[in-house]
């Protein structure tokens, strides 16, 4: 690739001090764009593990009550063109069963023994929840949870319970409202636990302290990162000012960083769904960004529906999704016009 050197402005090609100002896109690319690009790629690479460590499959969530009964909450992807879906429940003693499809449609269910036949036609995701009394047995003071799970699952143990035996390795463990939550793999699992106030509170405190320490480290790391980025940005800006050749690119950059107005967005993306347009309007009026949870609250949509809507907008190039405090921050894209 040959670099073409030509005067930027013929009338002012020579400055007062006799220096020839030249326009050279390749030099500008090298001096300004490339470092920014490198920085972006490296920052993205640094952030990638954050996102992957935050994400965990939660298809089946179990909550054990202190009396041993268990609440099951499961989300399942189904073929919307199949008329029915047969689901094996975790036992026979089922209470309070509710199955909800897309758009929070209440679905019909027939239960035969431990099988639920759900009329899912038209739904791509179903949420099923019920209480079951078959998963926990008690022997003396010892409680035993047993399950042969078809996929990975989370298990929230009762308050003040202490694990005294288990057959599987936990994938993860968290403390939620002073309760242990384990993430476990698919397959047969048995966990024995007792109720004891001392041990669980010690464990909780221990983990909480570690979490606090880790939090401080993360915050420190993020602050350091921001300072470094700011410092580098300042260096680049100062250097560019010194070179006096920034004007053209600055204009381009400013143009790219401006969020388009609603009319232009809808003009560029004329095939957006009406409900998606409402989302875009809300985000636009909210200074161009909103948490996914805010969108759910505003539009009273279930988690999966809103997630799909946001992903749809992301695919369309209208928004970008960033992680903020473990939540999805949905932002209108600033360079939409350029991509379109």
């Amino acid at each position: 690739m040959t670099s073409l050197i030509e005067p930027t402005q013929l009338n002012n090609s020579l400055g007062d001090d006799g220096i020839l100002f030249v326009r050279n896109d390749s030099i500008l690319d090298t001096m300004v764009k490339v470092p920014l690009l490198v920085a972006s790629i490296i920052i993205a690479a640094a952030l990638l593990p954050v996102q992957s460590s935050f994400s965990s499959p939660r298809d089946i969530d179990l909550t054990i009550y202190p009396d041993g009964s268990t609440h099951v909450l499961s989300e399942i992807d189904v073929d919307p063109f199949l008329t029915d879906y047969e689901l094996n429940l975790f036992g026979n003693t089922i209470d309070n069963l509710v199955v909800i499809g897309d758009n929070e449609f209440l679905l019909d269910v027939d239960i035969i023994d431990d099988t639920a036949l759900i009329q899912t036609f038209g739904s791509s995701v179903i949420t099923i929840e019920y209480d079951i009394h078959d998963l926990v047995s008690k022997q003396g003071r010892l409680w035993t949870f047993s399950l042969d799970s078809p996929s990975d699952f989370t298990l929230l143990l009762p308050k003040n319970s202490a694990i005294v035996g288990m057959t599987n390795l936990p994938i993860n463990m968290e403390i939620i409202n002073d309760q242990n939550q384990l993430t476990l793999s698919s397959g047969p699992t048995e966990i024995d636990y007792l109720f004891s106030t001392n041990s669980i509170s010690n464990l909780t405190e221990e983990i909480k302290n570690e979490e606090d320490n880790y939090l401080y480290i993360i915050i420190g790391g993020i602050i350091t990162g921001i300072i470094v980025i700011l410092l580098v940005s300042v260096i680049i800006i100062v250097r560019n000012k010194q070179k006096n050749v920034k004007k053209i690119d600055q204009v381009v950059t400013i143009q790219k960083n401006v969020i388009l107005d609603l009319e232009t967005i809808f003009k560029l993306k004329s095939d957006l769904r009406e409900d998606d347009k409402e989302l875009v309007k809300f985000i636009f009026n909210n200074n161009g960004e909103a948490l996914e949870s805010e969108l759910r609250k505003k539009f009273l949509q279930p988690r999966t529906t809103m997630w799909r809507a946001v992903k749809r907008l992301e695919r369309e190039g209208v928004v970008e999704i960033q992680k903020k405090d473990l939540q999805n921050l949905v932002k209108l894209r600033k360079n939409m016009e350029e991509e379109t």
Partner: protein
Amino acid sequence: MKKLAIFTILVLICGTTSPSLVTNAYGQNDPSILLRIAVQADKQIINQLDQVYGTQIPNNIQILYDNGQKAVESLDESLSNDDVEKAKQDFLLAMNSFMQISRTISHSSQQVSQMTISEKSNNQLSNEIDRLVKYSKTLEKLSKKYDVNVESDFIKINQLVGKLQSQINDSNTNSDNVINQIKNILKSIKSDIHEAAVNQRSDRIKQLLNQLLDEIDENLKTAEMNGVDKTQIDMGHELVLEVKDLLSKNQIDDAKAAYYELKELMKNIGYPVIFR
């Protein structure tokens, strides 16, 4: 160039240190959690042994405990040496030993009792209330979506829940009657919601099926042009008409059954119904 080099180095340092910070911060995925669980289990077992046997621990249980404790120590050492695989083995060995001890102690003290709904202590009553309240909230949300007027029923449920809670405080466990009342109201609410949902769902299914039938019709024409067996094509057209007819008669379940047959046929002739 110097500045550019410094910049790159700084970013590289930042980039390489950030992931390690994150891994530590969310290290609950890391094996050290195994040690915490095992140590807590160990403490619980010591308490149990102390309470049940005092200083007279039976030999078989003592052997099991020694095995468990050794495994915990080994787990600690394996983690220090970053030997994750060994740590996993140690964890399972320790937890298995402790599990056997707990079960032996419990078995000797009491017979197995499977949890049933009828077993209701005050604690269980409190759990039953929690479950019913959770279920009630789910139904309340659905009733609003379908605009079913059952607000008075939910007020009644709240009153009954309050009554149950006061029974817990009064140590009065005769609560079956109130629980049954709540369950009956919830059953009635669900039935009302179901009724309201049926119409909306039927409309939605009709809309979806009609849309699919148009597409299937087009696909059958294409298939015919591409030389697919005429008998199959005719059968497909017949099924399309049948589904449309059943939909017009509001026989949704029959329409779904006929559609299912049509869907299989389309799959067999190489023109499956695809989600768009």
